[in-house]
């Protein structure tokens, strides 16, 4: 047991923190700043900032240097995540490209793909979307119906994707499509992962409004959209395997950034509780609310311990495999618990942003609602529980 990091890792922390101190303006760390900008404006501000960060060498922390990465250790990546959250730096504009597509291209892409995809993605010159879910294929991804039919040297794509993050900001979309009919009813067969240009007449992206009112995701319609036949990742008909490989890159995630973020949220909820009156005393003195807040804190700290566990494993080069489903469940369900405590603390006041505390509670309320999405996207909690039961505990199908 030794929770210290190496000197080299700590040196990286200092260096990155000092860069953030000088390059992340204070105003960008406040919620008011982002509330003052439209979604589109905010996206461009974040992109510009992130480009500067990449140019300074603080991107692709654990990627090999040959791909423009920093060649750092898994611990440095965790430190990077932690420092970003501590500084309240903006979230990446290219999450699907950075976390999923890039490592997949490094693993199985052609030399040409490595050259043309990775660097523009790292520098946020090309924003990538993920075209997996369809109206009829959510948790059951293999039920997807998107068709890609050969025409000359291209595929013509027809169908619809949905829940697409950054749908209206994306430049390209890695799309699961059926390039041939499933053989013998095997629905995982005949799928390919196509790299589709979103700037073309055959692609129409529409924003979807979330329950929070934000428009972070959308739907993408393909009407005779064109994709050259050599723009396939992982080979024709290998789309399912490619998608599984791609999703596996989330496994190394330690959840430390989620911990930092929700621990901050918990502190804000406690602050609200100590200033709101409940039955003639501060809500933070209500014994039932205290239990709920403490209970959420317990799981938060356990999430931190778990991130140490994950980091210990990944630092030793171990693949967590299906344990990754546990990490997803842990952070998303803990986030819900903190958010539920907030809803209980504000009570009837949850309905309005101004409870006379001198600042708006809009962002905390939005965050509480956002927690409801996190137990759905990226594999719903129900899907993850099935994975844990079958793949980790070995219960029969």
């Amino acid at each position, binding site marked *: 047991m030794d929770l210290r990091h190496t000197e080299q890792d700590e040196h990286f922390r200092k260096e990155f923190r000092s860069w953030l101190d000088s390059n992340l303006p204070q105003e960008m760390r406040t919620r008011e700043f982002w509330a003052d900008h439209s979604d589109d404006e905010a996206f461009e501000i974040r992109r510009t900032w992130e480009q500067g960060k990449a140019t300074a060498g603080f991107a692709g922390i654990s990627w090999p240097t040959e791909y423009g990465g920093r060649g750092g250790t898994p611990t440095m990546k965790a430190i990077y995540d932690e420092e970003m959250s501590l500084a309240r730096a903006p979230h990446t504009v290219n999450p699907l490209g950075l976390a999923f597509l890039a490592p997949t291209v490094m693993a199985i892409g052609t030399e040409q793909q490595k050259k043309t995809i990775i660097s523009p993605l790292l520098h946020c010159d090309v924003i990538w979307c993920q075209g997996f879910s369809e109206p009829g294929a959510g948790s059951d991804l293999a039920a997807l119906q998107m068709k890609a039919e050969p025409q000359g040297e291209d595929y013509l794509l027809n169908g619809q994707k949905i829940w697409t993050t950054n749908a209206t900001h994306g430049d390209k979309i890695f799309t699961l499509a059926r390039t041939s009919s499933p053989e013998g009813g095997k629905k995982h067969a005949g799928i390919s992962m196509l790299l589709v240009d979103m700037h073309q007449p055959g692609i129409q992206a529409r924003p979807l409004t979330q329950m929070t009112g934000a428009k972070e995701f959308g739907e993408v319609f393909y009407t005779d959209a064109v994709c050259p036949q050599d723009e396939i990742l992982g080979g024709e008909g290998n789309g399912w395997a490619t998608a599984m490989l791609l999703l596996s890159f989330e496994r190394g995630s330690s959840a430390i950034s989620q911990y930092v973020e929700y621990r901050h949220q918990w502190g804000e909820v406690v602050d609200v509780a100590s200033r709101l009156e409940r039955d003639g005393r501060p809500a933070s003195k209500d014994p039932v609310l205290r239990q709920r807040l403490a209970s959420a804190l*317990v799981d938060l700290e356990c999430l931190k311990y778990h991130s*140490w566990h994950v980091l*210990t494993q990944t630092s030793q080069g171990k693949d967590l495999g299906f344990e990754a489903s546990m990490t997803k469940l842990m952070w998303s369900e803990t986030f819900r618990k903190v958010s539920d405590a907030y809803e209980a603390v504000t009570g009837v006041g949850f309905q309005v942003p101004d409870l006379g505390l001198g600042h708006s509670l809009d962002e905390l309320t939005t965050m509480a609602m956002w927690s409801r999405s996190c137990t759905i996207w990226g594999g719903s909690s129900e899907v993850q*529980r099935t994975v844990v039961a079958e793949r980790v*505990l070995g219960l029969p199908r």
Partner: protein
Amino acid sequence: MQFQLTDEQRALQDAVRSYLRGRFGPQQVRELYDSPDSDGVPAALWQSLGEQGWLAVLVPEEHDGIGLGLLDAAVLAREFGAGTVPGPWLGTVLAGEALRLAGSSDQQAAHLPRIAAGEIKGAVALLKAGSSASPSAAPATAQAGTLSGRLDLVEYPSVADLLVVAAQDGLYLVDPRGPGVTITDLPALDRTTRLGTVVLDGAAGEKLEGSTPEVVQDLLDRAAVLVASDLVGIARKAVTDTVEYDKTRVQFGKPVGSFQALKHHLADLHISVTFAEHAATYAAHAADIDAEDRQLAASIAKSKAADVAAEATGAMIQYHGGIGYTWEHDTHFYFKRSKRLEAAFGDGAQHRERIARLLIDAGQQGAAPDETTASTTGLEMSVGVA
């Protein structure tokens, strides 16, 4: 970053497992259940605990102990929980900790080597029954070196050679067989322990002069961490055995473990137990390195472990069906032991209330900017304390 047991700690874990597998399994636990009038200390088991050094882990080397840390003791406690091991191990280890933390060198020299060798058994009475784990809940009153008071639900008082009692001004050593001490045995639901009421009526007490309220709190936290570790061992065993059973038990033509109602709950339990394991491990380590958040960590561990063990041992009965409700199955060993320990040294709700006092009332909620938040994140903190 090494958030895992060392090779030596894993070897210790293996040694206990292997011992229990070969020499003290469910059959031996059952024999104890079938003889409620025995003293509850299987002689061969107790002798082995002494021989293996499992009573000496926390005793300093200068007093013939091994001088290891709380995490090493927690490794033992976890395996003892998984094996529902009876006997006054905890009381003896805690009596030793009281001496180590607060005793004079003479007191230490008189008792610690004998504790380490398994020559004497200890018992502790640190709290009024049902109280939160605080020095202010001392069960005895001291007056001019004599102690009075009723000590409820003390574990193994009848076999103890040494009793550590908390009074309003600190800890005292009491000879359980001395004048002014009356012990009445009580039948306990969990037969892997023995309980009794100890009435002190002007009994002679020998003060442990170092027992400030801080030291008593430290002792209570160490107790909570060891109990949390035992509970974690129980909970893991309950989940593992239930999963194995439900893989083979067939109903409606399928193993019942294939049904989603069970699967999802067992998956959640696996995650909760994993959380509790981490929490107990960190809390022990935090005590060993005197981390800033050691009190918080102890309460996190105890509350999480208590909740998880309650849920896991309950699920163990439920997901075994009718057989799980019988005397002949082992399920009730775990359930009953869990119930006893869930409440020991502060239950889940009491420790959550303490967490609220530590973090909410103290205004350390970390809502304000980065300084505060930074100090509450583990990666930061671990560097700070090292």
